[in-house]
């Protein structure tokens, strides 16, 4: 490589770093209230999407329970705040522990069967937790949902959007670094082996069973932890939030960003969070469509994005395996 080419490559890398730095630092200064809330929501979505993309992309396991684990974290935060006045930091830990436990149970229950049954198990989880959450809503909070306020993370008070944003950025970087490290380590290698063997019918070897248990428990724990954080941001944890729709949204983010790509998941999360307001404004432009129908069109768009992401990515992997 010539010196000129080397310089050019480094220049590109610098540009990338500069753009990322801009994207990370700028928002509180340039965004208005609405855009800031969108950005923070996007960041929360990205945090939760990262473990799912590992689970589905790297380890090859389909989970429909992502909203359920997210909700476990949210409800853990709500119950702790309601019953013991416990704040954010501890809620994250307790929520993650609860997520880990439930994740381990689901994985254990479906360990000895073909991979699709994990999807079925998580599907069942969603439909078991939903009425439980509804009952908690009715019995404990009289259907208003848990109201969470004044969050502080390890002493850092999250009292403004800017503080929330930077806190989430730091968390995002840490989570990204940790998950990336796992992904490229021998643990991640085991996950890939698991993916290649999930297609085999019947019983997995003991060590692969352990791998399946491990990755599922881990990702469930992280998701629940993010769920606790998210509940504090929105100030509410209520059963209606944690629906199958949400789980499918997460799957769409993973598919859009490329299953297994942490960076892709982050970008896709921000794309998908910007989508509803974007569609809303396009669709109701000059009264083209009744605003009441906008919701349905948003849903159709998400479904189509999911479909096309899968088709496009599948063509990509076909092509790349040909030029191996």
């Amino acid at each position: 490589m010539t010196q000129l080419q080397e310089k050019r490559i480094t220049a590109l890398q610098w540009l990338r770093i500069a753009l990322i730095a801009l994207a990370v630092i700028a928002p509180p200064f340039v965004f208005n209230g609405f855009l800031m809330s969108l950005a923070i929501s996007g960041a929360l979505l990205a945090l939760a999407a990262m473990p799912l993309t590992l689970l589905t992309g790297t380890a090859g396991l389909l989970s429909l329970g992502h909203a359920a684990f997210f909700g476990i974290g949210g409800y853990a935060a709500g119950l702790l705040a309601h019953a013991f006045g416990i704040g954010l930091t501890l809620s994250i830990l307790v929520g993650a522990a609860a997520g880990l436990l439930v994740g381990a149970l689901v994985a254990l229950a479906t360990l000895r069967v073909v991979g699709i049954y994990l999807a079925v198990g998580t599907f069942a989880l969603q439909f078991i937790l939903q009425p439980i959450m509804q009952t908690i809503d009715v019995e404990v909070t009289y259907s208003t949902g848990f109201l969470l306020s004044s969050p502080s993370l390890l002493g850092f008070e999250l009292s403004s959007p800017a503080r929330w944003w930077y806190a989430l950025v730091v968390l995002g970087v840490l989570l990204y670094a940790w998950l990336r490290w796992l992904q490229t380590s021998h643990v991640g290698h085991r996950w890939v082996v698991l993916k290649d063997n999930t297609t085999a019918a019947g019983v997995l070897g003991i060590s692969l069973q352990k791998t399946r248990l491990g990755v599922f428990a881990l990702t469930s724990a992280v998701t629940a932890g993010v769920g606790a954080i998210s509940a504090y941001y929105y100030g509410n944890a209520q059963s209606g939030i944690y629906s199958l729709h949400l789980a499918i949204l997460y799957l769409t983010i993973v598919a859009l960003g490329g299953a297994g790509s942490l960076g892709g998941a982050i970008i896709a999360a921000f794309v998908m969070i910007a989508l509803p307001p974007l569609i809303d404004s396009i669709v109701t432009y000059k009264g083209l469509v009744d605003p009441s129908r906008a919701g349905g069109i948003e849903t159709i768009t998400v479904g189509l994005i999911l479909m096309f992401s899968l088709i496009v990515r599948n063509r990509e992997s076909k092509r790349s395996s040909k030029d191996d």
Partner: protein
Amino acid sequence: MLSIEFWVNTLSSAGYYSLLALAIVFVYSTNRVLLFCVGEIGALAAFVTYSAHQALHAVELPLAASVSVLIALALVALIGAVLFWVIEQLGTNGSHFVGTIIAIAFALTLQGVMNTVWQGEIYRFEIAPVFLDLGESRVALLSLVVGVSGLALAAAAILLLNRSRIGYEMQALADNRVLSILRGIPVRRRIIAVGAFSGILAGIGGILGAAVTAISLESSTLGVNAIIAAIIGGLTSPAGAIAGAVLLAIVENLTTVYLDSRHVTLMPVLLLGVFLIFRPYGISGKAETVQRV
């Protein structure tokens, strides 16, 4: 003691659940895809039947009801065919569950379509209520008809599968795709035909279900119960689908009679949980006889 009314309601539920569950089993057997959109296909068929009937009735077309049903079934047959065509486009590359996610994407898209077109409206088919006196009970004739016709159609579909050449080819396809290619079965055409056929089964199931409940977006949750029924019956067993549907109908109706109606959604899922832990391959217990390419 369980009343005759209870059994008629159970029969009725079993009728439409068995069609939906059978659609799931046909699809899973051929393609290892879990038809998560079965409920949405059924609900869409009900909506289209209703709206088509409204339109045709207004222009006083004779046999408006039958024509509406045919239009709806043609549409869902097309949707089923398209779904399978899309899945075929993906090929056997990549993860084994990509097809299932496509089905989930279809479910979401169809929900969005129904939401956009019909929004949150709830309709009912205009069927004059007729009651029969059986012993000391009064039972709705509609429930009986739905139950009997649903189960009869499901049984007929299974017979068709077991006795006809196309049926053998579909079984062959489910059993071993490569061998089927080598023995000259037009695999792609057959798979798309399975899609269309399953769409029709799901559509009829959805229309029958809507006839005794209601035509609404909520009725796509019938799909959840149908998935449970198919799994507890054994995902690769058509007869199991019917057994699972019957069992689910019994559990569902027992819950309404003896427990709170709030638990009606929870009980089938708990039943699924029990099966997943103790007998994941269902009543039929057919182990996966998968041959992956």
